[in-house]
């Protein structure tokens, strides 16, 4: 409908590539997590805005070129860009109800994420909490996508 304010949505054609990136990113992210992030391939010189003193003998400082495996960075970007494409491309038929489902899902995802975060702050400690923080980089987007697609599926089911 012409009255819809959907100016932040990308065309529908990007949704497929979004799903591919999102799923690939999540799968490789889980593999990386299971392997305890121990990957040394793709060592590349990168610009670090601020670097703390590391275990590998690097001195702390601003704007330094350091060597770093960019596997985890690539995976994180794949998940986030893929997730954004999935969540913020138009549906095949985009209308006011779908728009409502999307915004409702965003609110739900933020609240649910905060709820889970509160629980983990209270009940997860030490190094394990670092894993929580890493997951928490992606969970708002993941919860949003799951919720949005669940609501769409639910309101599509069985006529009459």
């Amino acid at each position, binding site marked *: *409908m012409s*009255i819809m304010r959907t100016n932040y949505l990308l065309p529908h054609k990007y949704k497929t590539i979004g799903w591919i990136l999102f799923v690939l990113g999540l799968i490789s992210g889980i593999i990386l997590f299971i392997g305890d992030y121990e990957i040394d391939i793709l060592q590349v010189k990168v610009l670090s805005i601020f670097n703390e003193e590391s275990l590998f003998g690097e001195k702390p400082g601003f704007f330094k070129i350091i060597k770093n495996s960019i596997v985890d960075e690539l995976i994180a970007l794949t998940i986030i860009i893929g997730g954004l494409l999935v969540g913020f491309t138009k*549906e*095949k*038929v*985009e*209308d*006011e*109800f*779908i728009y*409502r*489902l999307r915004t409702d899902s965003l609110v739900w995802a933020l609240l649910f994420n905060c709820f889970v975060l509160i629980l983990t702050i209270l009940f997860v400690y030490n190094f394990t909490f670092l894993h929580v923080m890493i997951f928490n980089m992606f969970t708002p987007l993941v919860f949003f996508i799951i919720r949005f697609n669940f609501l*769409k599926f639910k*309101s*599509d089911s069985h*006529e009459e």
Partner: protein
Amino acid sequence: MKNRIKVERAIHDMTQADLAEKIGVSRQSINAIEKAKYVPSAVLALKIARFFEKPVESIFFLEESE
């Protein structure tokens, strides 16, 4: 807000998908509006009424409490 879209669809022998296509909205929208789970915008309500060639008040009604 209640509505009689389902009745109107039956009169015109249309499925939800048919009506959605004619109005230019998703099937989910028609489904949700019919079940009174979603209150359409004034624009959409007017479009539905125009399609059935009836005044909007004969398709959408306020409930007692509204």
